[in-house]
């Protein structure tokens, strides 16, 4: 894995150099800005980007993710405790994984207008399904022998939940986070394309209208770095939780 | 027909040769078994013959000529039937011919003939998943025949089947061999199977394999299972088991670092 990552980094660097070369050859900044131009724009506009736009997007991401997690866990536990609920809800959830939920964004704008609420809603809708399904699958993944053993100790439903299902479901939960959080960031940015007072996605769109390709890509750097940081945080959290469980 | 002359072979990365200075010969048209404990090197002999491995020194001669220049002089039948699940039985049987570039019309004709031979002429359009284990091995055998050579290498072809299927396929195989006049080299770990099928039995009982003990089975063809009860056959069976056990001991002692197992 390490080797592959090293390769990736090395190759990424090569790509960067290649990009710089092609950009310099074409020499049309509005078509292909060079990495240097992108970073220049980033550096020049960093205060505005980080102090005005970044918080707008991140607020949506954080609130949305928190709601997603709460809702997702709640539904998963609910389905876990009640078979009829599971049978009613689970297929709907699985079905929702197949339809392209982002396409419903215009409907959300109808409901909530061009507000922050709408963007939070889109983020929630995009990530809570997968959290629910994954955590629920995690609950179900408890081995039959373990469950039977607990029963022989006289354990009841709640104890089964806490001692067996939660630990089993934790890896599933973190996996769903690792998938869901980057998507939350993307969803927040895309939602801004519909209309927002600011935000990294909105910034990209406005720069696009001005044919400013470098400015368009600058927020992307911030978004990518943010996504990486969040992934590292999640992995760290996962590590902590795992050691704490032991 | 087939001769191993002072053949030495070592797997890449191994400390010791697996086969060293081995010499033996097989006559044309015979049914010969090679038996020995697992991992003793039986399959390696096959791999040297079908080109999956190459010898370090020595010669392997077919009718006096070195095999290193030759192609398609032997047909290999592996332990698992390895039938392509996405093709019909007929297409499966035609596989070696497709690769060798045989004309389509001819392929169909030969395939039909071979399938009839193995008694499966009516399943040509079925898929492997619709057949039983025994039938699949028979299809695999038909495919092996379609590879076209006179030397057949059968690598534990019946070991994955249940007992009853296995013994009926043994009887069937003998029947086929007597009709077809091929030279068969047969690997098995089942002593009784070897006794029932072959005229000569080689025991691999050494590491590195420097020589193989040769035994002749005093039974005439055509054979029946009752002939196995004869006392001289039972004595031979005990002798072979004894030799295999000794060989297994010897191999365990010598087997230091694990050789790169190539299946």
């Amino acid at each position, binding site marked *: 894995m390490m080797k592959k990552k090293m390769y990736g980094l090395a190759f990424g660097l090569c790509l960067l150099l290649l990009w710089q070369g092609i950009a310099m050859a074409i020499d049309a900044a509005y078509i292909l800005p060079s990495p240097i131009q992108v970073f220049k724009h980033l550096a020049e506009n960093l205060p505005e980007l980080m102090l005005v736009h970044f918080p707008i997007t991140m607020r949506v991401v954080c609130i949305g993710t928190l709601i997603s997690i709460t809702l997702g866990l709640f539904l998963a536990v609910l389905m876990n405790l009640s078979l009829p609920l599971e049978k*009613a809800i689970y297929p709907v959830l699985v079905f929702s994984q197949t339809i392209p939920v982002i396409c419903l964004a215009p409907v959300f704008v*109808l409901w909530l207008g061009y507000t922050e609420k709408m963007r939070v809603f889109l983020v929630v809708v995009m990530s809570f399904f997968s959290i629910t399904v994954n955590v629920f699958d995690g609950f179900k993944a408890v081995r039959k022998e373990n469950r039977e053993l607990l029963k022989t100790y006289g354990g009841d439903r709640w104890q089964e939940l806490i001692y067996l299902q939660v630990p089993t479901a934790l890896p599933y939960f973190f996996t769903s986070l690792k998938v869901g959080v980057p998507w939350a960031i993307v969803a927040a940015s895309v939602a801004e394309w519909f209309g927002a007072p600011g935000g990294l996605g909105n910034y990209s769109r406005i720069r696009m209208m001005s044919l400013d390709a470098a400015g368009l890509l600058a927020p992307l750097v911030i978004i990518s770095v943010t996504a990486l940081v969040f992934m590292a945080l999640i992995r760290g959290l996962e590590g902590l939780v795992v050691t704490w469980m032991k | 027909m087939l001769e191993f002359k002072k053949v030495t072979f070592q797997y890449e990365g191994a400390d010791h040769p697996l086969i060293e200075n081995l010499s033996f010969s097989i006559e044309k048209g015979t049914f010969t078994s090679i038996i020995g404990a697992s991992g003793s090197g039986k399959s390696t002999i096959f791999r040297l013959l079908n080109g999956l491995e190459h010898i370090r020194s020595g010669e392997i001669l077919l009718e006096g000529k070195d095999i290193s220049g030759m192609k398609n002089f032997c047909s290999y039948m592996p332990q698992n039937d390895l039938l392509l699940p996405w093709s019909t039985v007929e297409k499966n049987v035609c596989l070696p011919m497709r690769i060798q570039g045989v004309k389509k019309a001819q392929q169909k004709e030969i395939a039909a003939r071979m399938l009839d031979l193995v008694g499966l002429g009516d399943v040509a359009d079925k898929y492997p998943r619709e057949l039983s284990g025994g039938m699949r091995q028979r299809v695999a055998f038909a495919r092996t025949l379609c590879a076209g050579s006179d030397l057949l290498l059968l690598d534990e072809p019946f070991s994955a089947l249940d007992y009853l299927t296995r013994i009926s396929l043994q009887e069937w195989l003998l029947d086929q061999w007597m009709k077809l006049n091929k030279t068969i080299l047969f690997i098995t770990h089942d002593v009784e199977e070897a006794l029932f099928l072959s005229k000569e039995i080689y025991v691999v009982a050494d590491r590195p394999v420097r020589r193989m003990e040769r035994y002749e089975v005093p039974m005439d063809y055509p054979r029946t299972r009752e002939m196995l009860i004869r006392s001289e056959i039972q004595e031979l069976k005990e002798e072979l088991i004894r030799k295999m056990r000794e060989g297994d001991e010897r191999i365990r002692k010598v087997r230091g670092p694990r050789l790169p197992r190539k299946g």
Partner: protein
Amino acid sequence: MNRMQVSMSMWKNNRWAISTAALLLILWEILARIIRIEHILPGPVSILRCLWDLRGTLLIQQMPATLVAVLAGFLLSVLIGVFCAILMDRSPVLEAIIYPLILLTQTIPVMCITPLFVLWFGYTLGARILAIILGTFFTIAVNTYDGLRLSRREMLELMDTYGGNSRQIFREVKLPTALPNLMTSLKITFPWAVVGAAVAEWLGATRGLGYYSKLMVTRMNGPAVYASVFLLTMIALAGIALIKWIDRHYVVWRNEI
């Protein structure tokens, strides 16, 4: 199983979900009639009526634009993806080059690059097609590549003993072995192709279901928004259904690899 039995078993297995869905639809209709705010929450009946009324616009003007983008983009994506997979399988050097590229795209959100494509191609088809390709071909490539590597060693060796060259081995063994994985990846990525087209249309287009739904939001025409979004979803579902059908009928060896 005959048709009747298949339908019966589908009902049996899903009756809770189907009932829930039906119940939700009825509740929705009731709620819509109570609230009576057409431009925000039209009922299912109203949406269907709108679908019918606007069938000219929707089906003849808007949907084909999106459909063309989705189909063209997806097909190209499949071609490029499979091609990359074959390259990676043939040469470890190419694998070492392409695989990290894929890791790279996992960190950069490709959807956010869509504004660049709209900048390049304006409001034309190209932006949508490029967005779709970049969003989907990596998944297809990786899954197909994994499928190619599933071929059993004994099978490849047997082909060797028959004297097969690498092209024959590829055609006879590797490609059929990889097909189930390829079909799975198609099932997963097709909805994303629809998303890619819609998202690109939101940024800039003159026609298309995504563009139309956004336009109708500004006109506060609730039923039209729902109708166009509904059609988009239908395209995604139809595509998946088609892929599943092809998979079921032609790639039946999924469990036997």
